[in-house]
């Protein structure tokens, strides 16, 4: 390699580092800001919005925990997320398997309509769902939102699983059939274990979706003790407009478990997220 070439290379290496550092700062700054603000007194924040807390206070955290219901909201979010994902994954795996392994009337229509439902905005569905929930007594119940979330996630999940199942070698299925496996056994014992990457992806994507959902939770979960984290935090924010450090402490408490989970399970998130999607 010529020296000119090498020098260009060094510049490019430096530039790449610079670009990545800039992007990293942008990505981390809001988190840093949340963190720093949460330890500030109200007065300190008003006069020194940026920079380190002086003095450092833990009052915001004790206030956030005593004046809001953050731990309870957190628990509700966990229940809703876990239940929705369990239901979605099982139901979608069954449907996807059927689409891939059988030739039946309405198959293409079924799959195409799944793709179409993928883009239906929840805002379109929310009023009829609300009226329906009122009639059957599912307003203000976690069951109600779990059913809705599961339903909303199914089209995308089926779509993803169909693409993945299709990529599995057909010989496997044939061999299983020759061995006398029923279709259900094939799905349960062969297809699903082989599809672990896709299922991990599905779980991560869907979990993030349910965890973050605001509109449905806002409308359906009105009583304080049934709120999930997102509407809870929104309410918390609306209630303490004049205490920004307290709001930031609340959001930090709500975010911290996710950040910790991420730091310790980065591979699960990053690689899991892509394993099933990139084929």
């Amino acid at each position, binding site marked *: 390699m010529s020296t000119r070439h090498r020098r260009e290379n060094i510049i490019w290496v430096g530039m790449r580092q610079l670009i990545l550092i800039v992007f990293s700062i942008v990505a981390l700054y809001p988190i840093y800001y949340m963190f720093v603000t949460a330890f500030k007194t109200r007065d300190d924040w008003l006069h020194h919005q940026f920079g380190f807390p002086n003095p450092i206070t833990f009052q915001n955290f004790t206030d956030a925990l005593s004046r809001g219901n953050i731990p309870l909201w957190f628990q509700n979010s966990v229940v809703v997320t876990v239940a929705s994902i369990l239901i979605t994954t099982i139901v979608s795996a069954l449907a996807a398997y059927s689409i891939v392994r059988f030739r039946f009337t309405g198959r293409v229509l079924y799959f195409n309509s799944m793709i179409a439902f993928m883009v239906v905005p929840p805002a379109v569905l929310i009023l009829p769902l609300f009226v329906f929930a009122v009639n059957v007594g599912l307003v203000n119940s976690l069951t109600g939102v779990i059913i809705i979330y599961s339903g909303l996630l199914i089209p995308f999940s089926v779509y993803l699983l169909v693409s993945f199942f299709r990529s599995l070698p057909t010989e496997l299925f044939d061999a299983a059939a020759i061995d006398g496996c029923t279709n259900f056994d094939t799905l*349960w014992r062969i297809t699903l274990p082989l599809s672990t990457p896709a299922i991990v992806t599905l779980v991560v994507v869907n979990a993030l979706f349910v965890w973050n959902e605001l509109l449905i939770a806002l409308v359906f979960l009105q*009583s304080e003790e049934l709120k999930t984290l997102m509407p809870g935090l929104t309410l918390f924010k609306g209630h303490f407009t004049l205490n920004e450090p307290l709001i930031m402490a609340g959001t930090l408490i709500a975010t911290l478990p996710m950040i910790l989970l991420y730091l310790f399970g980065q591979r699960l998130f990053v690689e899991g997220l892509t394993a099933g999607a990139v084929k």
Partner: protein
Amino acid sequence: MISKRFRLFSIALIMVMLLSACGSNAAAPANEKVDLTFWYWAESDAPGADAWMTETVEAYKAVNPNVAVNVVPQSTDTLISAFQAAATAKSGPDIASQWATGPVLGFVWQDALVPVSDYVSQDEMKNWLNVDENKYNGKYWGAPMYLLGIGVMYNKDLFTQVGVTAPTNGRWTWDEFTTACEKFKAAGITPFAIGDKNGYGGAWWFANVGIQGLDSTEDLRQAIIGNKPFTDEKYTGWYRLLDDMVKKGYFNEDVMSLDLDQGVRLFWEGKAAMAFGTDGMIKQASTDLGEGKVGVMKTPKWGTGKLADAGNATQSISFLITKWSKHPQEAADFLAFMHTPERLTSWYKHTGVIAADSRFDRTLVTSDVLKQMVEFETTGPQVWLENFLPGQIDGDADLTAGQTIFAQSGSPTDAANLWQSVAETWRNQHPDELKNWQDWKQ
């Protein structure tokens, strides 16, 4: 293989059980115990109100051990929409909070409420103030807690510093006001602090400045039901005054980055010479800037309508008993408990806002500036104009037109046209509500 299938089946079964367990919201087994859910909003008007309510619930429990009141604080942004959803679902709190008059009547017309006056004795209610704000069909639909007005609070030190003297009669003309603003601006002090990110800054201007062109709330109703155009000078001409002030830089420049309360906070910090303030906000200002450092005057006068001289005191939030409540009597009893003299005194100690009750001991008000407010609030006719708008016109015209001017994304004419078109949209979309407004004799 069968066993595996059973395993799956049992997982599904467990899940179903789990779901039905965590979703149950059924009524508690019937015994003597009464649970009341109270969707409560007051803290934004009167800082300290939440703490007072906690104390009140405890005190009530001591007298009525079988009644548990579960207080759920509400947020300003969702006060109407959350209760609207509850009213559609016909399930929700036993006691709700809504702003008086328009919003309350909206729910009366939806058949979501029972009259408070059906459950509270006349003997008790005769002490409550401003109940007429929620009078409809000869009944009273809401319980008041406090009486709140809005004045222009000013920083006495900054006035002295710049050489501006407060009006001797408690009120400036518009010219005197803008002249003072110019002086502050020249001295590098923000003349008037406000926030309008959430639209309420503009709404306060409508209620305090916009009102001055009108002779009565009937004037406003005529425009709402379409008999007069909102583009008429008397309704929306005042946006020119606001526009002029924005253009001249008489407001803090980050109006649109701040919610109303955050804007008012600039005044508390001594960063602005004037701001709109409720009794509670004035009390807070006196705490932050020092007792005796804060003065209050009426909103400067520009208009010639009969309401130009009216006060703007309102009960603001009203507490309502819902139609679906299983314990309306217990709910009413709790509302009456909130009006016991001991509770009224405690209310004032917590908030600095006077209680809406003739039994409230006004000698508790010792600060000059708050005494001045009480005088404004209890002399002459009182109208809080925003309460006389249908929710959609308030949300889509009142709040947004103010933002249009503050953000300078439109002219005063655009703001006037917005009122007109939103009102027209509302009339077209809600012929049934329109009928109620047409029939409503104020």
